[in-house]
């Protein structure tokens, strides 16, 4: 009984957040995803060429879906409503993190399937690597948002890292976002672990600020 009440609560929170906060971001991500084949031909690509649209285009959806997770609370009225509820705001943040990461995974999988149907060489490593890239870029901005509370600055942080990768990718070692297109999959595990750390720190920082 207690279990079902808890599940219902999670579902209610997720439903409200999905409708009000996530849908516009998901729509924007889908636009980016649909634009990719228009900008970059995705037929009969070998694994290195397949990595290019995945790393350079699809990874951007991580910025769109993850960075604004704490944004709703920037509206004082919403912040007051959430604070007045007995449910811990960390709980709500974690629900948002989960559905955003699931959103990234689903979009990457859909796009990978589409590429596979177009005759591209898609491997599990490429799919996981793209998810790690997207999560790293997004979590970096999320951490900036947790610390600064400034959404444009948070987007700037993620975007700056993206630009740095274009300009000097070989110098970034294990934190190179675009390593898969050179056939190197090692950095993606570092990026994935770093993204989990960034997300954990972000939620903790937000929790710390909420308690003050």
């Amino acid at each position, binding site marked *: 009984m207690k279990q079902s009440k808890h599940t219902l609560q999670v579902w209610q929170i997720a439903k409200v957040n999905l*409708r009000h906060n996530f849908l516009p971001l998901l729509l*924007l991500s889908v636009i*980016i995803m649909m*634009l990719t084949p228009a*900008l*970059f*031909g995705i*037929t*009969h*690509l*070998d694994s290195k*060429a397949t990595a*290019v*649209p995945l790393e*350079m285009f699809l990874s*951007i959806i991580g910025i*769109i879906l993850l960075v604004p997770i704490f944004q709703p609370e*920037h509206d004082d009225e919403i912040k007051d409503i959430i604070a007045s509820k007995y449910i811990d705001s960390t709980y709500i943040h974690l629900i948002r993190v989960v559905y955003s990461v699931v959103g990234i995974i689903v979009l990457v999988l859909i796009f990978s399937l589409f590429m596979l149907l177009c*005759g591209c060489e898609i491997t599990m490593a490429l799919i996981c690597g793209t998810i790690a890239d997207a999560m790293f870029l997004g979590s970096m901005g999320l951490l900036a948002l947790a610390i*600064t509370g*400034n*959404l*444009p*600055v948070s*987007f*700037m*942080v993620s*975007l*700056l890292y993206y*630009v*740095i990768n*274009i*300009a*000097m990718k070989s*110098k970034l070692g294990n934190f190179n976002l675009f390593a898969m297109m050179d056939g190197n999959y090692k950095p993606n595990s570092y990026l994935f672990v770093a993204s989990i750390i960034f997300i954990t720190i972000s939620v903790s920082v937000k929790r710390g600020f909420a308690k003050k």
Partner: protein
Amino acid sequence: MLLGKEIRKTVLSLTFVAFIIALLVMTISQDVLNFSDEVIVFPKQGADYGIQQKEVPELIMPAAFSSLCEEFAANEYIAYPIGFYKSVKLNDTDREKMADIISTLSGAEQEDGSIIIGKDDEVSETKGDIEVTLSDDISYEEFRACMKQADDLIGGGSNYSENNLLNYSYVAVTYEEAIENYNLIASKDKFTGAYARLFCDFVGIILSIFPVFIAVTVCLKDRRAKMNELIYARKTSSFKLILTRYFSVIIAAMLPTIILAYISNISVWGQYSGMSLDYLAPLKYTIGWLMPSVMISAAIGMFFTELTGTPIAIAIQGLWWFIDINVGVSKLRGVHTLFELAPRHNALRNTQTFLDEFNTLAANRLIIVGAALLLVIATVIIYEQKRRGELSGYETIKTHIAGLANRKSKSAA
């Protein structure tokens, strides 16, 4: 007075600090903040002057034709449609059309997408097995027309596009040409212009996107501080307010850029003592080359933020920027188009290309400035409408959607 206040507000924001960091990271990482290691010296006789692209039909025609035959045999064409690598495989219909092109160029017959050399000799489709040669009767103009057709079949950006054909024609720079290039830099660029141009090439990447963040922050600040109604009631006209804010963003973005341009340029002044230098080159280039990009980026930021009350401008400008920088990769040597956001000229020399392309570049910059000013005027109109209570942008849409959702749940209940 108002301008001073707005500049102070912009400069004291976290967004501006992030912008400065982005500028420094870009200039330092790309080695354009200190040019002291890249001195342009008068060519010495007998030295290696490097190579250059030159349109030599005798070099281009056989090399491009041979490459096309190889790619045709493997049915795998390399292309860079927007600057990224792409491997294209043609379907049967397009393969036949490509065979027609090769047939026209070589004089060999084609049948069902295969080239027939002799009577019973059919070329296998294995890579590198094509043995046809370019017909002597083909003129360079005919050859270029065929290559254009081939490029269209591949989808553009292939090795046979007008620009990429030049990649088959690299020739050594002669002593005379080296002197000519040097004299051009000395007389037209007065040395400093060449360095300022390379600085702009890299910094343009940052300045065509990051001002949108500053503009969005400035516009959202009133909303977050719930100061909108208070400002709406003030006597200051919408025109004055929006224009002041706009120029505060432009000044905030341009001042550090000009300072960095001078820091970068001054690093080589000492190397050219006794020569005629253009000390205003960093100023001229940053204003002429970079300011239009800053203007459009800030204008898009203000327009869409005032229109929707959301940071959607970041996504819009981000998308344009993303496409533009990738398309720009194929024009690094200084070729320009009318609607580019961040013009590229990724070479210290190449002054002749800059002079040849100057009119297109100037037209592009004027179009961008014009578009930016139109957006600013549109922002003034939107702001005025909001002030009169006739437009509330995204809030109205949000209320309607919420109303609709509520009605739905009520009827379901």
